[in-house]
């Protein structure tokens, strides 16, 4: 008992310890080799800068989070009916799949300036870029999930004379849920990247914008702080979805 709980503690402590060691190595290297802060700031320097710029970092994080969440939410809202249509209807599938695949294959960074040209300087172009970047993994996983109902379960529903609607509600949707969440977890990290692409191309606010101006002014520690925040944001959103998934999909071991 004792040894297993202490070894579990060791397991849990190993990973933070490794991360901490990497940070220390970074700090020490920067100091020993006297690397200038505008090339590679030390972690303590980044921390200091982050504290100094806390209000700006906070405000711009919220801007980026908002774009990410709105775009991600709209991507889900768009994917749901499309996935149902494609899963149910062979003609819709043949018609829509090539278009959607084409959209997915266009490099988003390349079309970002066009989207901004069309939609102007509101937050909408950024949201549209987020949607474009993250709807595909949601859609593809959702379609796969809606088609994943086992034949035995479909036979059971059919033997009861269940309608398509009933088969969806009682069978296809529950079967699709784990696939849907897999798609969401992939998509949400893309969504953060999408926001940053949008902010790089045209913006007056957001973490992407902050990175752009701070590097242009050689404020490298601030850029690093913004990048760290983006990373944390991405990880937090991923775990947030996982948290929801564990509560919704509570039947898989």
């Amino acid at each position: 008992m004792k040894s297993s709980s202490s070894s579990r503690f060791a397991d849990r402590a190993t990973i933070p310890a490794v991360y901490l060691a990497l940070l220390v190595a970074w700090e020490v290297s920067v100091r020993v080799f006297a690397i200038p802060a505008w090339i590679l700031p030390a972690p303590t320097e980044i921390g200091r800068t982050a504290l100094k710029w806390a209000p700006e970092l906070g405000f711009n994080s919220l801007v980026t989070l908002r774009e990410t969440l709105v775009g991600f939410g709209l991507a889900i809202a768009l994917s749901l009916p499309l996935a149902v249509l494609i899963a149910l209807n062979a003609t819709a599938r043949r018609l829509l799949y090539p278009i959607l695949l084409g959209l997915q294959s266009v490099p988003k960074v390349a079309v970002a300036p066009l989207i901004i040209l069309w939609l102007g300087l509101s937050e909408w172009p950024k949201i549209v870029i987020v949607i474009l970047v993250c709807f595909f993994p949601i859609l593809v996983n959702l379609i796969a999930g809606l088609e994943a109902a086992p034949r035995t379960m479909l036979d059971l529903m059919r033997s009861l004379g269940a309608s398509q609607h009933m088969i969806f509600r009682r069978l296809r949707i529950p079967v699709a849920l784990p696939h849907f969440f897999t798609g969401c977890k992939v998509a949400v990290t893309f969504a953060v990247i999408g926001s940053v692409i949008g902010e790089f191309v045209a913006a007056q606010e957001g973490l992407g914008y902050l990175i752009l101006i701070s590097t242009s002014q050689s404020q490298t520690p601030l850029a690093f702080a913004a990048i760290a925040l983006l990373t944390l944001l991405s990880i937090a959103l991923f775990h947030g979805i996982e948290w929801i998934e564990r509560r919704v999909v509570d039947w898989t071991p």
Partner: protein
Amino acid sequence: MIAAAGGLVAAPPPAAAEVAAIDLRGVSKHYPGAAGTSVHALGPIDLHIPTGSFVAVVGPSGCGKSTLLRLVAGLEMPDGGTMMRYGTPLDAPSHEVGIVFQEHVLFPWNTVLENVLLPADVLALPKAAARERALRLLEMTGLIAFANHRPQMLSGGMRQRAALCRALLADPRLLLLDEPFGALDALTREELSLELSGLWQDLGRTAFLITHDIEEAILLSDRVLVMSPRPGRIRADIAIDLPRPRNADTPALPRFQELKKQIRDIIFDRRA
């Protein structure tokens, strides 16, 4: 009613007052196989299930037993022949038929009770009455304490019992059972078989059981049909003239052993 062992299908009974639950004539089934070939899975066979009787089919693995059940269920259409259910053409599944599939097929995202209530949801039966009946069925099968558990928490035998409760929920006129206890150990099998026998006796319903366990077939049935290897045909139709209610002592009766030997001899093609 004792058919001759050795090949011929029992002649259809004389026109009865009551219409047969199931009547198949000259039914056969092919499945598309690899590279344009076709697999002759079944028949042509005749199958007659009188209303109120318990009919079992035994036969080797792959001889088309499940195919026959899927045809009777209306889940599959035959290549040829005619199929009638309660005097009307059988061309689709019916809510008057309850099925226990070879794999128990319970939804892991629903509780046992919600699984048992599935037919009520699909058929839009009155909620309160359905719930009451579901609870009674769970009580009868000893699952009431697990009503709000997910099926993955149950043992194999309990899952099969839950699937049986679901099949019985809408009070079907005809119960189709595809090796309902096939995946279970011998002890649980016998226990569940006897349980089913009692249930069936109480409800007085028609049942069609597929199994490869000869004892199970004899213990439960009024008639046992013996199928040949693929493409399955009915080799013999044997009336089981054992007294009811049957219980754990029934297999010890000399007549039970005689019937068992008779069926084994047909399956293994030995001269009686």
